């Protein structure tokens, strides 16, 4: 296979500028992740440890196989909102007893692990990934339930969490809940709907209503242990399948459950690394998004052995398509080469996507597009028709899609290049990337033109000073709302990643999506219900 060449000169001023710009973005990312890791802050972390409890990430670290990778998902959920970064829950894909699993852990240091709209969205996204990739799900539960001030936004949609759990079970995807503390009211249905439940002695508290509510409802005087203690559930109600002596014992039991699931491992095997240093990836994306860059320089640092077979290299050259491998998995790549998508590019993409479907090869979209070409000539040549062709192919393609936004993702280009709405199995963003209906300057300019036209139509004079102010404000707002951290905070991707981790992230994701093709069971073989808890 042809090996990609590189033209990168690390000593050039543009490379050095690009690199320093990227390092600034990475500093912001590191800071944001630091906030996510800090959970509820020192005070609550100290209190939690003082109670002899482990933090959400500590529980996960103990659960995972030693030295196996863990891909945390949506770590920046709720960034830029009033809620804590990370949204009080940690989700991710890791390896437990050699089995790749989805792990969801409440962070009890953040408002007692209470669920807010972002935690709900994050949890549901994790559930969706588990379902589409058939990953066993392990819930590490300690949550006070709904964040009451936000109940209006979460109560009704929140029921979907329990629905999804039992649907996983019905689909033959195992679900395991380890209860470390509170799981009351609605939260009680997390263990309630799980295939396997493990309750930690003297810690788990699982009931529909606590002593005060019971007193109000029926007048009965009772206590936490009688209503929902681990011992009670293990010996009387049967809600707990296993009684753990402490947190570590609970995690041991969860691992033991996974070991008996009769599932194999799906980590990538050995493969040749790229020929070029992934460190260079920091110097390739342009510091100024308006300057396009060659995605082959990226592919040369992501694909196995830097090998890439380009398809239709001389046709529709603003979109690069071709075949390669990542960590041994075959992949078809669509990467924007010069921002704009023309008719040729759209047709080339549609053909390429069909070829990948024909050979059941997963697709990787590297987004760096300002959208489909505009203008009278292009409209007349059928740019909408051709764009629709591409969007049709993307929307109805049935092979797994992985999307990475490595620069810009504007306009309908976001759709054609498999943006969030087109359900890629995974979507990650580089810290430099932006996404919006259009660029901030263009959007402000459009608003300005429209306002000027309205003023003219009404015969009023146009206030240029006010216009300049408006344009600056809009540009600033749009710029902020297009940024990677902001969009990640709203769960429009599965995480912002360090460009140097791209190959690892994609390899891990390909292992996850491949696992599904290996283990698909037809619906007719399965019972129509989740496992009934007895």
């Amino acid at each position: 296979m042809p090996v990609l060449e590189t033209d990168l000169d690390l000593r050039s001023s543009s490379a050095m500028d690009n690199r320093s710009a990227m390092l600034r973005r990475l500093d912001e990312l590191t800071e944001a992740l630091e906030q996510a890791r800090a959970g509820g802050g020192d005070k609550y972390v100290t209190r939690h440890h003082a109670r002899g409890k482990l933090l959400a990430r500590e529980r996960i670290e103990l659960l995972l196989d030693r030295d196996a990778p863990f891909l945390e998902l949506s770590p920046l959920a709720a960034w830029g909102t009033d809620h804590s970064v990370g949204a009080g829950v940690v989700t991710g894909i890791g390896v437990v007893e050699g089995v790749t699993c989805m792990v969801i852990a409440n962070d009890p240091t953040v408002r007692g692990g209470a669920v807010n709209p972002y935690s709900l969205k994050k949890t549901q996204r994790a559930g969706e990934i588990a379902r589409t990739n058939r990953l066993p799900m392990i819930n590490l539960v300690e949550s006070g339930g709904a964040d009451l001030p936000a109940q209006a936004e979460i109560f009704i949609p929140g029921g979907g969490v329990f629905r999804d759990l039992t649907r996983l079970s019905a689909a033959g995807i195992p679900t395991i809940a380890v209860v470390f503390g509170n799981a009351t009211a609605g939260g009680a249905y997390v263990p309630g709907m799980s295939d396997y439940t493990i309750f930690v002695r003297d810690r788990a508290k699982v009931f529909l209503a606590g002593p005060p509510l019971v007193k109000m409802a029926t007048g009965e005087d009772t206590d936490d242990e009688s209503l929902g203690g681990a011992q009670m559930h293990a010996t009387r109600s049967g809600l707990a399948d296993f009684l753990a002596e402490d947190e570590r014992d609970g995690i041991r039991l969860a691992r033991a459950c996974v070991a008996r699931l009769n599932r194999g491992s799906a980590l990538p095997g050995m493969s040749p690394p790229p020929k070029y240093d992934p460190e260079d990836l920091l110097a390739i994306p342009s510091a100024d998004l308006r300057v396009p860059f060659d995605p082959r320089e990226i592919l040369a640092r992501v694909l196995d052995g830097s090998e890439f077979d380009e398809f239709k290299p001389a046709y529709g050259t603003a979109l690069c398509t071709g075949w390669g491998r990542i960590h041994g998995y075959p992949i078809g790549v669509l990467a924007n080469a010069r921002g704009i998508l023309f008719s040729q590019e759209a047709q080339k993409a549609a053909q390429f996507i069909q070829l990948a479907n024909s050979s059941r090869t997963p697709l990787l979209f590297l987004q760096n597009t300002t959208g489909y070409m505009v203008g009278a000539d292009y409209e007349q040549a059928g740019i909408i028709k051709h764009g629709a062709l591409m969007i049709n192919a993307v929307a109805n393609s049935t092979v797994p899609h992985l999307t990475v936004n490595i620069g810009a993702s504007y306009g309908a280009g976001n759709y054609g290049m498999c943006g969030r709405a087109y359900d890629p199995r995974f979507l990650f963003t580089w810290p430099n990337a932006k996404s919006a209906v259009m660029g901030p300057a263009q959007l402000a300019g459009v608003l300005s033109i429209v306002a000027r036209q309205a003023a003219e139509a009404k015969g009023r004079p146009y206030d240029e000073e006010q216009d300049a102010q408006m344009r600056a404000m809009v540009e600033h707002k749009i710029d902020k709302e297009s940024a990677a951290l902001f969009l990640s905070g709203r769960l429009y991707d599965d995480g912002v990643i360090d460009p140097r981790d791209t190959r690892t992230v994609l390899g891990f994701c390909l292992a996850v999506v491949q696992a599904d093709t290996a283990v698909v069971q037809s619906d007719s073989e399965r019972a129509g219900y989740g496992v009934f808890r007895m």
Partner: protein
Amino acid sequence: MIKRLLVANRGEIARRIFATCRAIGVETVAVYSNADADSPHVAEADFAVNLPGNAASATYLRGDLIVAAALRAGADAVHPGYGFLSENADFAQAVVDARLTWVGPPPKAIALMGSKLEAKALLAEAGVNMLPSHTDPDEVDVFPVLVKASAGGGGRGMRVVRDRESLAEAVASARREAASAFGDGTVFCERYVEGARHIEVQVLADGFGNVVTLGERECSIQRRHQKIVEETPSPAVTPTLREELCAAAVIAAQAVGYVGAGTVEFLLSPSGEFYFLEMNTRLQVEHPVTECVVGVDLVRLQLLVAEGDALPFDGPPPLRGHAIEARLYAEDPASAWAPSTGTLHRFAIPGVSHAFGPLPVPGLRLDSGVGDGSVVGVHYDPMLAKLIAWGPSRAEAARLLSTALAHARIHGLKTNRDLLVRVLRHPSFLAGTIDTGFLDTHPEVFAPLLAGVDATRLSCLAAALAGSAQRSAASSLPSGWRNVPSAPQRVAFEGPTGCLEVSYRLDRSGALAEWSVRPVDRDEAGLPGAAGGASPHDHPPAAIVSAAPDRVVLDVSGIRLSYAIHRVDGVSYVDSSEGSVTLTELPRFPARSAEASAGSLVAPLPGAVTRVLVVPGQRVSAGDLLLTLEAMKLEHAVHAPAGGIVADLRVGPGSQVETGTLLAVLNPD
């Protein structure tokens, strides 16, 4: 001429004798107990005969079986090696009576020298210097004295007594031990000389009356009267003294009509006088040092004399350079020399150029009875091997021997290796100022070789990284990769100084991003949380050069260090140029559920109590039957889940119980 030789022994000495046999074309016959069926000495022999059983008394000490084995296997000669029947005159006689060639002195000489009391009396008459001794403890007038068994050797039954009050008890216990070990309870009290050295002379005699001496050996480094480091020449012996010692040794050999190889042992007092102790009528364990400096094969000479030939010497041969032998034992010096048994997973000593025979040029010789995978049991002497260094000077020999021992890979058993290295490197040893009390006066030699906090930490880190490399070997994803790094990987080991937890985190390129090694409580080992894993400031900066499951190379403050890791069932043996350490990985998830269920015993189902077999206050062991229940015509037994005391009994025969009814309370041990 001997055609086929049976060696009535096992381990390294059997292999040693076989090696000479192979070199001169004599066929070999091994005998072996059941436990030794897979031993190297059996594999190396041309023929092998089983001695059923394991105890020495049922196997290697059964002269009748061994003579029968020799006849059955068509052997025409028997070599006894050392120990076992080597100094048993009856056995020697039985061999001779079976018309087999006995490779050893005449039975009469063995018998004479076998009784230390008789030997002393005989040689005193011949004019050899003796320490005063008494068979009647009441006659002892000067203390301290050494209580010794008249029969036997190897330090068994010996006791130093410093005052009259403890003498009677010491004599009584020495008698008991001698009676049980040698079948002869005769003991005597000999003047004990403080600070004395053990010097012995190798003699060879043929049937024509020729007696030659092959220099002396010093064996002053002893543990409990058992030699562990031996050398020749002795730094304490001047040419004049050597002449005197050798002359005395010749007198001793001639006095008993000695034929073959033997050793005359002397005690050298700090003031320079020497006294006859005893004569060993066999090949000595430490014979290789003499072979090095004299340049002879003592076993070959033994066979030559046994075949009736004359010795090929006109006089004492010249001595060349210096040789030191160290005996490696499977025993723990730090735990009162407790023997260590089990599987020797690896036994490799670097730089060995020769085995089981004289070294052609200065270097290292290894005489070992074991190899990788050997099982060391409880039945026999725990000596694994002898390592011998021959060099131009004493200092060079000591350096070669200590370095080879320090770099040896000995896995699976506790050994005295570290102690040997510390002795060989000790300034007093190197200065030649040694005596038989060396280990008592230099307790510092008992310290483990791998000293220093950093050396231990780095060995632990290497073991952890080797484990990580093993677990990550199948995938090309970076080991322990995280997009949101939160905590390092943790592995806890039980090491020589307690529980140690290693934390390490690799970055995306496989470089060591952080690490620490800290002592932890066993309960907290491996648990993330309060303690954190950040690199403490006192850790030396370390970088990974390479990491594989069996070898980790680190760059520590600019110095490259290589660690060999051998892992067997969760135990990592880490060897490096800084020393060796054995690390047992602690389970990541200690089982908790079972232990906690001890205590209150509740009825597993509804029914009636039919029998109660315990009373409150009774001690029970795990699994003991406590009571029985009858339900639905079936009897259900309730057993003790753990050992303990029955603290409370809530039911009696006939009691009706429901599921969950408390039957008894057990206070676990």
